[in-house]
């Protein structure tokens, strides 16, 4: 409590000081962007680059004079991957910090826990989590930047079909990402047709050896490819076990591991695997004509320069979220929540790092499955296949 009081007091003093200094130049109130992210905990590899991205671009935008002539102010909390905390922080952002828009929610659980609150408070919310349930069915105030896991499943299965593969051994994490991915894969298999799931295994996020599950999948009759849906270190262990067991089948992973960190963990054993990912991992392979190329290259170099760390596709979700928010506020010409929401819903042809967004009243994601590129690991780095 003491902390809050001192914080309030120091804020008050700061505001007083600023208004004294800027007596004649009436400084407009900043635009408050709220965020709750899984900066620590099991999903920290999502929240960490997301927070870094938000901090960095809020600074950059402010250096260039802000939005609508007003500075941006980022108010952010760490939900540690815990849905209850996420709900509390969403509530705090809306009711206590009175932010104008929320860009956050690293995981589907955190996002969904905040959704009732957001819908009730009628505040625009751009989620950074993947599952299809976030925007299907459409919720008036909820948007999201990553492609859904359903699109990823479709993209993977289609690539398998073009490779002449039809019997999939599926292995997935029991966490939110893997579990939802598994469900969407099973759904996509039904809708696409001509391909089937012949084995279905899972592993928990903290497992240290997946040899048993992989042995089972390998022994399924007729299996001709294996797909792993999961994120965190689990898929890296799966990949290494896959290699140790000497399984020769074509190996697919999900966009959950589309990061250079994964390549470091999995090492040589990742050789040859394919996955759907944002073009962020292969900016140099993009043709000059690709409209995403400059955006992707700029984000990558700016992020890596600022943080001295490899860029990650998850950070890019936050980049797109922030830029969509800014675009919508500029388009609306105000921070009035209904106007910003309207503007968000009508954004067309917004080129982001993840893809080109075309929002509409029945699509609050605005991306198509083909915004995913299929990449393959060759000689320890990503190669663009199509």
């Amino acid at each position, binding site marked *: 409590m003491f902390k809050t009081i001192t914080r309030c007091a120091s804020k008050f003093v700061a505001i007083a000081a600023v208004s004294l200094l800027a007596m004649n130049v009436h400084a407009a109130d900043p635009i408050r962007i709220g965020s709750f992210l899984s900066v620590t905990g099991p999903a920290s590899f999502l929240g960490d680059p997301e927070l870094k991205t938000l901090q960095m671009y809020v600074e950059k935008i402010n250096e260039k004079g802000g939005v609508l002539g007003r500075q941006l102010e980022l108010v952010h909390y760490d939900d540690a991957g815990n849905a209850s905390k996420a709900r509390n922080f969403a509530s705090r952002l809306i009711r*206590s910090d009175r932010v104008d828009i929320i860009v956050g929610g690293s995981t589907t*659980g955190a996002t969904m826990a905040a959704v009732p609150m957001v819908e009730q408070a009628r505040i625009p919310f751009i989620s950074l989590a993947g599952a299809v349930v976030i925007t299907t069915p459409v919720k008036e105030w909820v948007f999201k930047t990553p492609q859904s896991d359903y699109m990823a499943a479709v993209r993977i299965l289609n690539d398998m079909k073009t490779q002449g593969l039809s019997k999939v051994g599926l292995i997935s994490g029991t966490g939110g990402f893997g579990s939802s991915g598994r469900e969407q894969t099973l759904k996509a298999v039904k809708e696409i047709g001509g391909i089937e799931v012949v084995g279905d295994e899972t592993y928990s996020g903290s497992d240290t050896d997946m040899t048993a599950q992989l042995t089972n999948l390998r022994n399924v009759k007729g299996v001709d490819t294996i797909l792993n849906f999961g994120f965190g270190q689990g898929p890296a262990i799966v990949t290494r076990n896959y290699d140790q067991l000497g399984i020769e089948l074509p190996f697919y992973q999900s966009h959950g591991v589309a990061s250079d960190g994964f390549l470091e963990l999995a090492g040589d054993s990742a050789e040859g695997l394919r996955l759907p990912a944002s073009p962020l991992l292969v900016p140099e392979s993009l043709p000059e004509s690709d409209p995403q190329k400059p955006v992707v290259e700029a984000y990558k170099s700016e992020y890596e320069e600022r943080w001295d760390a490899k860029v990650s596709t998850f950070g890019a979700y936050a980049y797109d979220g922030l830029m969509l928010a800014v675009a919508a506020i500029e388009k609306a010409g105000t921070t009035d929540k209904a106007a910003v929401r309207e503007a968000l819903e009508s954004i067309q042809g917004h080129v982001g790092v993840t893809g080109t967004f075309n929002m509409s009243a029945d699509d609050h994601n605005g991306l198509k499955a083909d915004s995913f590129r299929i990449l393959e690991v060759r000689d320890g780095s990503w190669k663009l296949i199509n």
Partner: protein
Amino acid sequence: MAQLSQFRLKGLLILAIVIFAVPLFITNPFHYGLATQIALIAGAVVGLNLLVGFAGQISLGHAGFFGLGAYFSAITTSTYGWSAIPALVVGAIGVAIIAWVVGRPILRLKGHYLSMATLAVGFIIAIILNNEREITGGPDGMPVVPFDVFGWELSPFGQYTLFGMEISGDLAWYLFAGVILLVAVWLAQNLIDSPIGRALRSVHGSEVAASVVGVNTAKYKSLVFVISAVYASVMGALYAHYQGFVTPAIAGFDFSIILITMVVLGGMGSTIGVIIGAVVLELLPQLLADFQDMEMVLFGLILMLTMIFMPKGLLPTAANLLAKRRKKSAGGDV
């Protein structure tokens, strides 16, 4: 007798005054949300305290019962359209049966075997909630409909009239949770100040003494374990309705540890103490949120230091200090 019951009412009275005074200081609906959650979790902690503080047993899986109550209510009301109260009662009965089946054989043994058994039960419950995606929504959780009484809904987003006053749903929920907490404390206090409570306290003081005057210690330990599990289940169900969303994290080991920590931090055996424990442990992350990366280090450090320097817990230590000072000043008068 008169003295004792006066004392009993005093604790309850102070709590009631605090609960109903809080709205005078709250201007922000977010704080009502926090206060509501604290009240509900404190209710579960009061139940857990009966087990830890009075039967001297540790549960490392109480969140499992909390989560089971929450999910049973969530599923039956949201998916199958049950009314909230029958859902809550049936869930509590189910949890009671599970606790009895696990507790009865294990509490015959002397030693901390219950901690291991509850750890296992808690994990198994969390694993089931996580895996049965079709029913529970899996790791991403599921939405829960608002609490209802005979068709009348209580939602944190609603508007209600109470004694002719317009009040917000947040405040209404807070008052409801406050009353629930008072009832929880009243029932717990009745149990403590009864022959059953005496038998339980004697187990803590000297189990042999209790047994040679005819106290069936195993039976009473099982009874109080079941009661504490029912507390968790009921509070879990209400928590689910209030939050409007549940994820398996509320059944997880981390939350079990938080619950037991609230008991020990606040002061084992002191009903008001453990409520203070719940308040402190729920508010601490909110206060530490500004420290970002330092949050975990500070939280661990505060927890460690508090327990090292106040091993009896916050309230008993404070009470001791006060008593000492009073004695000193009384001595000074002579």
